[in-house]
């Protein structure tokens, strides 16, 4: 506080100015410090937010990738299972074919046992007669079976007449024969050859294969684990 009222001399003026400059400086530094503090705080908050966001993103991406990998694994697994299943089926199919092929090749032996073969022929013919239910039937056989066939025809016709009380006339077809490489059996035709019943051994074998396929499967491969009821 000035007690004198004279004007200030140069030194005093300089002093006053220095004081004012110092004061302004002080105020400025204080305000600047406040601004810096606020800025630092905002920075920290923003940084924390960004870090949290990015962490969440990374976490989400990671989860997605895990899921994808799992799905991929499942797909691969499934593919593998399918492949092996197919392979199993293929191999089984092959085996079945082998069995059938073997059977076919054995077919020729059937006609070698005369007694049995004759009986078989008789039954084949009889079955055909029942199916045709015609009174005029022609039978086509192999050339080598002709004699046997005659026997069989007579026997079959006799049984037919007894059981159905109908008359029938069965003749050997003189013009047509089963080919020589056929394993045996008979083809029966009726009425001008309109209806044919193929009872050749080959045909019978094919039918048997189809019918017995389920049982053969079980015999070869065991019962299927998926089936609920067994025949």
């Amino acid at each position, binding site marked *: 506080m000035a007690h004198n009222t004279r004007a200030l001399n140069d030194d005093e003026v300089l002093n006053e100015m220095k004081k004012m400059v110092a004061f302004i400086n002080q*105020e400025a*530094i*204080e*305000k*600047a*410090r*406040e*601004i*810096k*503090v*606020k800025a*630092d*705080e905002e920075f*920290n908050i923003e940084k924390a937010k960004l870090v949290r966001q990015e962490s969440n993103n990374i976490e989400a991406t990671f989860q997605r990738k895990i899921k994808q990998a799992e799905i991929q694994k499942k797909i691969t697994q499934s593919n593998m299972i399918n492949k092996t299943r197919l392979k199993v089926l293929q191999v089984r199919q092959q085996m079945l074919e082998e069995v059938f092929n073997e059977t076919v090749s054995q077919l020729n032996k059937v006609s070698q046992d005369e007694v049995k073969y004759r009986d078989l022929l008789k039954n084949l013919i009889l079955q055909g007669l029942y199916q045709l239910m015609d009174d005029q039937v022609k039978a086509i056989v192999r050339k080598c079976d002709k004699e046997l066939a005659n026997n069989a025809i007579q026997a079959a016709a006799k049984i037919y007449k007894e059981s159905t009380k109908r008359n029938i006339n069965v003749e050997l077809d003189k013009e047509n024969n089963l080919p020589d490489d056929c394993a045996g059996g008979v083809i029966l035709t009726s009425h001008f050859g309109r209806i044919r019943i193929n009872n050749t051994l080959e045909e019978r074998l094919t039918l048997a294969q189809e019918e017995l396929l389920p049982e053969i499967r079980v015999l070869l491969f065991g019962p299927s684990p998926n089936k609920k009821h067994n025949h």
Partner: protein
Amino acid sequence: MTEVIDETVPDVPLAFVSNSYLDELTSGIRSRPIPWDGYKTADLITKDELDLLKKVDKQSPEQLRIVLQREEEKYTELYANLLEKLNRVDTVQYILVLVNDMLSDNEQRVTFFHKLSEKDVELPYRIFLNLFKVEDEFVPLMSSKILTLLIVSAPKALPFDLDEFFRWITLKLKSNNTNVYDLAVQILASTLRIPSYRTKLWEVSQAVDTLVNLLKVRNPTPQMQYQIIFCFWLLTFEREVSLEFNKKYDLIPTLINIAKAAIKEKIIRVIIGTFRNLVEKAPEANLPAMLVARLLNFCENLSSRKWTDKEIVEDIDFLKERLQENFHSLTTFDEYASEITSGMLQWSPPHESDQFWRQNVAKLNEKDHELVRILARLLSQSSDNAVLSIAAHDLGQYVKYYPSGKKFLQEIGAKQRIMELMTHEDPEVRYRALIAVQKYMTHAWV
């Protein structure tokens, strides 16, 4: 926006601790001659150390700058070594001044001190912590100033517990010497820049207590008020602090009073800043107390003033907005009812709001005028003047917005009681009773 790096504008200093008292002591010590040659002869210092000292002893600031350039590491080590091995107080004082000059000239040089930790993990802090025990006015003060700069610029976690330091500061805060506690507050203001130190200080129980005491009881100067409230502002950035701040120290009313009386803009600036932090970090704990302390009115008052500072305007608007939101949500009848039934009457928002009374007056008649009866009972039985004033006021509002209630008041003897209170010893109670009677009498001829 193009970036202009203006080399002439210095950055905000990390630590800002100085006053004329310390400066005077410092220049006194700086000019005192020290017999370095004698020390060399007594084998207290080496030849190399002597040579280095000669180059900086009593040099001008410009000369010092030249000498220190590129030799910072050497001089840092020199000062550190000397401070640890020399004991004479005047020598230690002088070296502290050298260190202070080195760091004041360029704050960045503090990194050289931090490099000392590569040799010994307790350095550089141990040097200065030890000097606190010296029986001298200057040495602990200057050491604490340097230590402050070291801890706010610390590149890694501190190898010592800050509790000790804070306890020492608390001691200084209690000093009767204004210069000493001025420096102590400045140290806190710099230290609290670092968030982790804020929570640390808050947990050192005595420290903040003393600070609050300084503000409330010991009548500080405006500059000191600013410093102390600046510390509070920094502390309230932490949610933990904002939650307990007002509950512990009841500072909201105190700060409002200071703001009302303050002449300097910067005091109001930090007070509003502190309030803003309280609202942002812990609104549920603070908004109600602020409303009770009539902060909303004060903010509207402040809004109408002209400010040179942009931030203060933003902060005031923010506060106003949040206070108004809270006010509207609190002006519910349920809040009012629970307050009345608790008997702890306060000047909470519902009492004063005309809109509240207009909308809700009928509800006071529910359950056989339950709330009115409670108010009347409080009026007759309470000895708390505030409760009497508020109860009288409320009953006045009741009859104002529900004239048919007058008969009821008369029946339960409340009217009689209010008239008695017009001669009560407390002026506020008399005033409220008078106004209530006035409301009672109006409309008498309608």
